[in-house]
């Protein structure tokens, strides 16, 4: 093979060299011959003439040499493909079934692979993206990981480390864009000036930030994304150098980043970047050492290993802990590849799906292999004739494999077409917060994968039948005509093995799908601790430059709530920051007044929520003891708090928390001790699948935010609720946009979009597997019945009862099912353990799921054997015997 490849290579690429070498060689021959003839006494002229005559025509021999280079194996392959195509056409039923089976397998695999490739495997769309790392702070003892930085700590890290060529920090929130038409809200990344240059992306126009832009007192500047520039500024060619208003403050536009550049949100196409120092919100936090809010990205110097970099980070964190123990004791610095940080969460569900479609393809291959085995039996005579005529065993195997490849390629191409169609649907099925979905497409890599997979699958389903066929006994097959005699035990065993294997694989898939579906059902039926029905949420963000004081914030939300509650049907309204599931959570360290301060290694944390008094009524969160908040809980009155049931149980075991006092460290809380005045029930605020943690609520009046995060419970339609809110806000300030109006139940539904996506796709694949396995078993049993028509006829002629025949055939199916289920059980137990991290409220070895799946499979197997069994009982002995 290697020699052939080499000479093919030579023939294709070194043609001219080969030609001249050949000419040299022949010339040498003539010359040597002439010399020899000269020595034997011929004249010079005669010697040369004689040499030429003996040699014959150099031209025609050169042509003959060229002919030997025409590559025979390639030609054989082409011939086999043509033959395979003819065989397929002669038997279209078989061809269509096989190609469709294959197309389903390849299509599903290609579609899922396109997602896996785009999301997980493809490098991030940044220059030398493998050098980019997210550097974060962690408290390993408490399992806190992925925390951000304070600006001061970051500045020291950036200065002290030598492993990274550059580091930059960023935070995101929204700013109000005014002055051009309707006020709107834009996503803003507030960054240290190095961020844009860190990624090495050139601006479309203008410039990126210089380090001067990041210094306090610098003029406010902004960089726009291309899409924001096109959609909100009509692609104004003079935008650079002109000013825009963000949160009522003027920023000079200095550059536009191309649409392809997205950071930090890869799904976000419209945004603005401003220097951290100019940010109305985080700009005020630059000199605080406490706090963990800045996300840091670094570019590792070429040639520096992760271990070296980590050692440096350890040194920096030790120095910080020594110099500023109050803020840094117990904190460590960690790094993780940026890619892993972005796609880490979706990686294992995606790989799970890829594994699942892989199993579907295996089942499809087993099905086709079975079809081919069946056909090989009926083609035994043809193969015997070929062998007698001199075809070697490898030649026969090669021919049958080529036929399989024709099938595989047809199936593959059809599958790729299927994938093209389904990738669109698939991307729209993906949860909206799924990273990198915009990159999902059937590109060359995906095409290459599909083609490789098709060829690989062809070999997988073609090899066993081909080997069997080539081994077949010549004499028997020639004599018997092949059709009804030559069913050797080997064939039957191979087919039964494949069918049992299909059952086993289908079982693994069904069990996995069953577990995920149960887990999903658990997830959606879990009570979040509040009643989301008829609740509409809406956000109003107050521009920081205009509304700069806490009193303004609480005055604004007071007036807004009063106005909205005055509207008919909308008296159940409240503000809350953060709202459960919707807004994320604020986790803070706290101390209990009068009890020893927690050591840094075991500090207490609580999720902190600031709410208006109506909140608990609107959300339906039950009061368990003490009192709720009311209008008298204002800034000047004693500071109070409500704690959740879990908070009371965790931190006040065997005592009454009422009357105890807490302090929290939070910039928006004034730090005065808060007395616990009541206990409310638990709420799943972080995620539906996460058990409720300790929570504390504070009156909004005592801890206001720069905006109003509304919840309105109303039987009115969501759109009329939204309209009313907009009207009232506009009456208060015409430049304030109302954003993110949504129904609470829909948000909760979106929160389970990812498990739903996984469960429904896996369910689909499991269904596919079930159908394929069912048809596989049907094929095996039908064929075995048709092979034994004569035997059954004889037995019935000798007096066998129909029931006996039926039982005999069904027994065959039952045996298959028993073997398949046993194998499947073992496989499932192994595989489902990998699922454990994706499951909620269901054990990977859940007996109910296993039981139901086994029963379904057993029933499908029985049904698939029953049809051919019935046919067997209708065999007419006379016809069957005459069949001879």
């Amino acid at each position, binding site marked *: *093979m*290697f*020699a*052939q490849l080499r*000479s093919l290579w030579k023939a294709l690429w070194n043609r001219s060299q080969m030609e001249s*070498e*050949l000419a*040299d*060689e*022949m010339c*040498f*021959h003539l*010359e*040597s*011959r002439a*010399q020899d003839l000269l020595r034997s006494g011929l004249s010079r002229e005669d010697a040369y003439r004689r040499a030429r005559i*003996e*040699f*014959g*025509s*150099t031209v*025609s*021999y*050169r042509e*003959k*040499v060229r*002919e*030997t*280079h025409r590559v025979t194996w390639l030609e054989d392959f082409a011939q086999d493909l043509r033959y395979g195509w003819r065989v397929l056409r002669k038997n279209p039923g078989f061809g269509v079934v096989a190609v469709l089976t294959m197309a389903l397998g390849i299509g599903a695999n290609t579609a899922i692979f396109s997602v896996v490739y785009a999301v997980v495997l493809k490098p991030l769309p940044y220059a030398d993206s493998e050098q980019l790392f997210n550097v974060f702070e962690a408290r390993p003892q408490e399992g806190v990981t992925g925390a951000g930085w304070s600006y001061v700590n970051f500045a020291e890290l950036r200065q002290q480390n030598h492993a990274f060529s550059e580091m930059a920090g960023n935070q995101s929130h929204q700013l109000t864009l005014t002055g051009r038409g309707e006020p709107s809200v834009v996503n803003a990344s507030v960054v240290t000036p190095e961020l844009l240059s860190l990624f090495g992306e050139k601006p479309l126009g203008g410039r990126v930030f210089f380090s001067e832009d990041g210094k306090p007192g610098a003029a406010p500047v902004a960089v726009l994304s291309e899409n924001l520039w096109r959609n909100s500024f009509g692609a104004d060619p003079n935008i650079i150098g002109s000013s825009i208003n963000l949160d009522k403050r003027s920023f000079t536009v200095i550059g536009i980043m191309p649409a392809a550049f997205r950071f930090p949100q890869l799904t976000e196409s419209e945004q603005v970047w401003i220097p951290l120092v100019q940010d109305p919100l985080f700009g005020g936090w630059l000199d605080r050492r406490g706090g963990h809010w800045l996300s840091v990205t670094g570019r590792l110097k070429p040639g520096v290993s992760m271990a070296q970099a980590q050692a440096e980070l350890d040194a920096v964190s030790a120095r910080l802990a020594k110099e500023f123990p109050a803020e840094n004791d117990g904190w460590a610095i960690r790094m993780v590849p940026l890619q892993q940080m972005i796609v880490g969460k979706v990686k294992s569900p995606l790989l799970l799906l890829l594994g699942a479609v892989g199993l579907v393809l295996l089942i499809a291959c087993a099905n086709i292999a079975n079809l081919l085995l069946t056909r090989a039996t009926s083609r035994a005579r043809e193969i015997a004739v070929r062998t007698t005529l001199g075809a070697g065993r490898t030649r026969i195997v090669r021919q049958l494999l080529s036929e399989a490849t024709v099938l595989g390629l047809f199936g593959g191409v059809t599958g790729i077409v299927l994938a093209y169609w389904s990738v669109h649907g698939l991307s729209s099925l993906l949860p909206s917060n799924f990273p990198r979905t915009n990159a999902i497409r059937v590109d060359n890599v995906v095409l290459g994968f599909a083609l490789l997979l098709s060829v690989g699958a062809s070999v997988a389903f073609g090899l066993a039948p081909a080997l069997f066929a080539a081994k077949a006994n010549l004499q028997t097959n020639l004599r018997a005509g092949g059709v009804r005699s030559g069913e050797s035990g080997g064939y039957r065993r191979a087919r039964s093995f494949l069918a049992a294997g299909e059952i086993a694989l289908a079982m693994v898939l069904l069990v996995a799908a069953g577990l995920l579906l149960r887990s999903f059902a658990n997830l959606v039926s879990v009570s979040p601790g509040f009643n989301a029905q008829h609740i509409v949420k809406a956000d109003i963000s107050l521009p920081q430059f205009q509304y700069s004081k806490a009193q303004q914030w609480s005055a604004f939300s007071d007036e807004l709530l009063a106005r909205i509650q005055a509207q008919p049907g909308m008296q159940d309204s409240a503000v809350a920051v953060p709202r459960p599931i919707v807004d994320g959570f604020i986790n803070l360290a706290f101390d209990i007044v009068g009890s020893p301060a927690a050591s840094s290694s075991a500090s207490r944390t609580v999720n902190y929520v600031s709410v208006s008094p109506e909140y608990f009524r609107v959300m339906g969160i039950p009061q368990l003891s003490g009192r709720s908040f009311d209008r008298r809980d204002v800034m000047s009155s004693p500071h109070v708090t409500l704690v959740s049931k879990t908070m009371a149980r965790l931190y006040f075991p065997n005592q009454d928390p009422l009357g105890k006092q807490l302090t929290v460290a939070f910039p928006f809380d004034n730090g005065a001790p808060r007395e616990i005045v009541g206990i409310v029930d638990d709420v799943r605020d972080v995620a539906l699948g996460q058990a409720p943690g300790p929570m504390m609520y504070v009156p909004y009046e005592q801890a206001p935010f720069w905006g109003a995060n509304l919840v309105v419970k109303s039987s009115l339609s969501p759109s009329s609720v939204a309209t009313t809110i907009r009207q009232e806000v506009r009456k208060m300030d015409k430049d304030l946009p109302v954003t993110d109006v949504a129904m609470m139940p829909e948000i909760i539904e979106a929160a389970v979009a990812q498990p739903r996506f996984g469960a429904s796709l896996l369910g689909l694949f499991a269904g596919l597997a079930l159908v394929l396995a069912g048809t596989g078993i049907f094929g095996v049993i039908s064929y075995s019945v048709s092979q034994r028509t004569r035997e059954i006829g004889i037995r019935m002629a000798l007096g066998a009862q129909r029931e006996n025949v039926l039982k005999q055939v069904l027994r065959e199916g039952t045996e298959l099912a028993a073997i398949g289920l046993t194998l499947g059980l073992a496989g499932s137990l192994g595989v489902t353990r990998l699922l454990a991290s994706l499951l909620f409220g269901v054990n990977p070895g859940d007996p109910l799921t296993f039981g139901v799946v086994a029963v379904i499979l057993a029933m499908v197997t029985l049904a698939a054997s029953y049809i051919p069994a019935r046919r067997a009982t209708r065999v007419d002995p006379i016809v069957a015997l005459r069949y001879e």
Partner: protein
Amino acid sequence: MTEQAQLLPGTLDLLILKAASLGPLHGYGILLRIEQITRGALLAEQGALYPALSRLEHQGLLTSEWGTSDNNRRAKFYRLTTSGRRRLREETQSWNRLVTAIGAALGAKPQEG
């Protein structure tokens, strides 16, 4: 001029392999060696050697490289590969069987009844 046998069709490859098995040779050398070991059996035309060489090389039975001949000229030398050696052995055996069989067939006398 002595009586010279023409080579049987299909035997050229075998003879080339045999010739090359005795040591690396250039094309003309192979020709001489064949004449020598067959005691003068002739190719119809000497050029026919080259398509055969090329075919054998293509099948991986021979390998070639350029070297210097006895008369100090650049020439392409052929050497038997491992699979070429194996092929030579197989072909020799089957040739011997054929010769024996044909010989026996031609030597058979009509049975006396």
